[in-house]
């Protein structure tokens, strides 16, 4: 079975897949901005909606965990650092370290906001093909002067497609090095250099092959993009996003 990845779009029978990519992009931008100042209640509401959307797209919390486990660990560090550095009512005292209630609350709130933004971004990339994101970006960039919207949109499409390729090649190279006992080196810098060099070489060779593949298929920037089409769920999605933005701002 092909691996599920939040960065890799696969057609799935989810209602959000058919929505207009322009509305999805606008909704994501709006929700990301609004969630930066959101409170507990509104975050709970947005997380519930986003969680249901995610489970509708990728019916596995394990996939989300696998792709965000390092980020979740970093969020835990943020919570801990805030809890230890913010003055307030002491909950726990371990020698010189004081864990405060105010710090814990503030850390959890910041971590939750970041998690919501990450979840929303993953929903967009998991529910929209890079071609549709490309056409939506081109549509938004068309009125902007000095930017070639077709080239910019194509590059964003390529960026989205390259990210899972890079992750896969890092994984494969690390596994190959582990099999050859390269990972046995105790020096983390040495290990990192030994990983980065072959990975970047392989990735650039992959990019070269992509260029040949595009050339052999007569790729040109003049080729018309598929228009960003919508579906019958556009209006509910736009209305839901607008309501959620208002809730994030007002509650």
């Amino acid at each position: 079975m092909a691996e599920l990845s939040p960065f890799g779009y696969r057609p799935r029978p989810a209602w959000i897949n058919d929505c207009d990519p322009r509305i999805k992009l606008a909704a994501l931008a709006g929700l990301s901005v609004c969630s930066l100042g959101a409170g507990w209640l509104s975050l709970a509401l947005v997380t519930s909606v986003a969680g249901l959307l995610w489970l509708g797209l990728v019916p596995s919390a394990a996939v989300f965990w696998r792709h965000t486990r390092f980020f979740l660990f970093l969020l835990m560090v943020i919570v801990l650092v805030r809890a230890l550095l913010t003055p307030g009512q002491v909950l726990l005292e371990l020698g010189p370290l004081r864990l405060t209630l105010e710090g814990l609350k503030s850390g959890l709130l910041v971590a939750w906001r970041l998690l919501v933004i990450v979840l929303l971004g993953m929903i967009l990339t998991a529910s929209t093909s890079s071609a549709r994101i490309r056409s939506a970006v081109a549509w938004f960039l068309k009125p902007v002067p000095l930017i070639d919207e077709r080239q910019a949109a194509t590059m964003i499409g390529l960026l989205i497609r390259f990210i899972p390729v890079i992750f896969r090649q890092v994984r494969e190279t690390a596994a190959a090095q582990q099999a050859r006992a390269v990972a046995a080196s105790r020096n983390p810098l040495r290990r990192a250099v030994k990983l980065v060099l072959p990975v970047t070489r392989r990735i650039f060779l992959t990019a070269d092959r992509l260029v040949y593949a595009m050339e052999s298929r007569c790729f040109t920037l003049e080729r018309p993009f598929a228009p960003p089409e919508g579906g019958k769920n556009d209006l509910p999605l736009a209305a839901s996003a607008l309501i959620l933005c208002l809730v994030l701002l007002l509650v």
Partner: protein
Amino acid sequence: MHFSNQLRSMVYASLMSALIAVGAFVSIPIGPVPIVMQNLFVLLAGLLLGGNRAAAAVGIYLLAGACGLPVFAGGTGGLGRLLGPTGGYLFGFLAAAYLVGKAAEHSRGRLIPELMAMVAASLIVYLFGVPWLKFVTGMDWQKAVAVGMVPFLAGDAVKIAAARAVAGSLRPILSLQPVPPREEKVG
């Protein structure tokens, strides 16, 4: 420019944008400004692609982040992130990539000019980032420098050395040599 080279430039610039995004995905939060690997790939973009294409790579990365794609530090994205406390660093990357790229175009692979350009580029990132951090968070200058610059200087030195080493390894294969087609697919 011949279309083949133009296409290759575009693909390489997109690839560098993706590498910058992956470098941002792993971030270590030590304060308002996290330690990330973005700088390494920004410098690498300049060394490998030249000024205009490196700036295009960073520009596309910023545009993707502004659209809300999860490409900024820790997998976040959105205009709020771009205008938030670390936004100055992100815009600083644009100037840094351009500077290193232009220096690399003129230095023809010589070590000292490239190292000096990378040091200057790292300082330019702070020139954008620290005042922005001070302005957005309301810190005083001393604290903004203490949390937004000082903790990263040692790491920057390592990243500059690593960028030069990786660029030296990659330059021979970026000379538009034909690569035999393989079954591996992108995506």
